């Protein structure tokens, strides 16, 4: 018994030694700033003006202010539309379909598959800001490629970012992020031995049937993981939208991360910006907890 306890302590010590650098970095770069933001959200801290010289504790004023802010509901709705559009429908579904297609093509030795794979990956290896500018170059009213194309066929230019701003940022983010989902699914699909499909085919199972019975059960846990991951990162998307529309026109693409940035750094209201980021953190945590509970209950 005593020997067992000692042995487990020894093993724990090893775990602790292994984990502590990560824990330290996490405390330094996440817990610290998060606590700072939480503390700051109870103050009227600003970058300029009287409140910059003498920030005061204002209790829950910022939160009351935020929940009575007529723009905040709009911002939350925008975030939800953006996540559903670009993460769930765009990156997730498109990534899965692309992975299935590529896996199928590669199993058949179809050479163009590698070309497609590379093209999708190229979108992903770009830094976000470059991806943003690529789409600005595409959508721009005066000098954009899309309107140049319309000009060639004699059609009048379209104000892409003005008429369909949300669709435009969803398309850009889908283009940028699909590769991640595709890579993960492709990796999972490659773990499925070909003979399973062979056997199923011999048994006369249709393609849909084979997908349903064999592919999907294997993909399910990895799909849950991917969905959680891309939902949360999409919820925090900021640079891509800032580059494309900067939240405009009139808040039509202002998502929560952008709103926090604008309040803190454009309007110099650091306390209020912190409040928004704390609410964002709370929403993300709530989502993660619900999601983990759900996936555990299924296990």
């Amino acid at each position: 018994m005593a020997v067992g306890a000692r042995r487990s302590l020894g093993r724990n010590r090893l775990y602790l030694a292994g984990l502590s650098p990560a824990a330290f970095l996490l405390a330094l770069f996440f817990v610290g700033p998060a606590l700072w933001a939480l503390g700051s959200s109870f103050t009227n801290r600003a970058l300029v003006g009287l409140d910059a010289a003498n920030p005061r504790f204002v209790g829950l004023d910022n939160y009351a202010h935020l929940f009575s802010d007529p723009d905040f509901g709009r911002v939350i709705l925008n975030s939800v539309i953006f996540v559903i559009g670009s993460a769930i429908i765009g990156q997730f579904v498109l990534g899965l379909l692309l992975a299935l297609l590529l896996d199928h093509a590669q199993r058949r030795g179809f050479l163009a598959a590698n070309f497609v794979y590379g093209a999708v990956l190229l979108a992903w290896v770009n830094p976000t800001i470059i991806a943003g500018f690529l789409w600005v170059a595409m959508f721009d009213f005066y000098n954009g490629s899309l309107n140049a194309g319309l000009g060639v066929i004699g059609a009048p230019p379209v104000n892409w970012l003005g008429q369909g701003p949300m669709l435009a940022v969803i398309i850009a983010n889908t283009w940028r992020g699909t590769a991640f989902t595709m890579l993960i699914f492709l990796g999972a699909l490659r773990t499925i031995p070909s003979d399973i499909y062979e056997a199923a085919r011999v048994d006369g199972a249709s393609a849909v049937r084979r997908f349903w019975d064999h592919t999907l059960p294997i993909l399910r846990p990895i799909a849950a993981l991917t969905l959680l991951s891309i939902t949360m990162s999409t919820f925090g998307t900021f640079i891509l939208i800032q580059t494309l529309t900067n939240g405009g026109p009139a808040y039509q693409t202002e998502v929560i991360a952008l709103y926090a940035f604008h309040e803190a750094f454009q309007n110099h209201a650091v306390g209020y910006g912190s409040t928004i980021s704390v609410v964002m953190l709370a929403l993300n945590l709530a989502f993660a907890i619900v999601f983990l509970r759900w996936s555990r209950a299924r296990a």
Partner: protein
Amino acid sequence: MDDVVRQILSRRRFLQLTALSAVAAACSPSAVGTAIPGGPSSAPGGSAPGGSGGTAPSTTAITGTVNVSYPDEAGLKPKYVEQAAAALKTQYSGVDVKIDLQKIGDDDYYTKLLLALDSGTGPDVFHVGGSSIGELADASYIEPLDDYVSQWADWSQYPDSVRSGVTYKGSVWAIPYGLDMRWLYYRKDDLQKAGLPADWQPANVQGILDAATAVKNAKEANVLPYALYAGPAGSSGTADHAFVPLLWAYGGELQDSSGKWIGDSPATKKVMAYYQKAYDGLSPKEILTSTKPWTAMREKLGNGQLALLFEGGWVYGGWFSADKAGTEQNVGYLLHPTETGGPSFTIGGPGTCWYISSRSANKQGAWEFIKAMNTADIVGKLNAEDPHPVARKDAADVAEYKASKYNLDATAALEKAKFVPPDPGYSKVIESIQKATARIAAGELGPDDAAKRYTDDLTQALGADKVTSL
């Protein structure tokens, strides 16, 4: 299998949360460094009281490094800053001047500067808009210059109107080099093709929209009728180059006599109705979504692809240096009309000014740099290239400045300029103006509702006790 997935999931969640924390971290400028080193400002040593002014060597040697930081995208200022730095180094052998030229926009520079000042690492001397004096002074970021200007003979060259523009709570806080004024620019060629005279003048504010409509109906290829800044993308131009002059044109004011900001009012509703008409096919909606839309609009007016634009007087310099003859021939400039009359006023401002950081370890050196940068010669030559009415009177006699009719017109127009009240709340008011104009320009609200929401935005930003409606 499931255990593994759960572990990955938790780790993945951790990773996501770490990524998320970047946002939280982004919202948390360094919490350290709020202590103010140095304490109260040391009285300026150096030049004897009543000394002979800018170029007189100081009795106390100035030593150490002076850190000068300024933004410049146009590239007109660097040679003068270098010249001033060289003069300072010649005058005081113990001085070194480190110049930090930031080739970024004024808004980006300002945010960057504030973060540096907030963490106590800012430069000794910096260069930002004079409209920030109130909020910078309130934040204790800047040094009052009363003790310095009182011993500077050249200060007598700055008229009272200029001095009052940089005075807040009884102190002088910054030294301007050129003042801001704005024009209603119009393209004579575009208006003529639309059947209007080359010496066109609007009979009233509506006359601008009428001319824009005429240009639109003339259906010239690649010519936009009019650009009216709106929304946050327009930056401070949405206020200073659009909403505020329109508000004054319709007889409105930003503040009432007690200093409360006015939200909804008959004039505000009229401005919103004007915006609605302008954004009904006259002014391009891309203004709402472009980054720095003024860049495209200024360029278009310069090459004839835009017929009407209310913009800063300094913008003329860019067109003029690119195409002297074409600009003189085709670009007309007028004062702003009112609801009932023709061109009669403009909106002024203190322009971009030089400040000394309250935390500077070398305030005397910083002041000597500002003096070297603001000699009559440099002020005159800089404003000749970057056209503004000169801040100091004697700079108007510099040959390069006098040579241009445009500079004389702009200086004369300053007498018709109305100034935004120097109030630290103005930057919050600009935000509310941006929100209100974006809603009407994007077609989300009608004039009455947009004017009402403007009151709500002001209340949200400044508190109910500082806002009123008429």
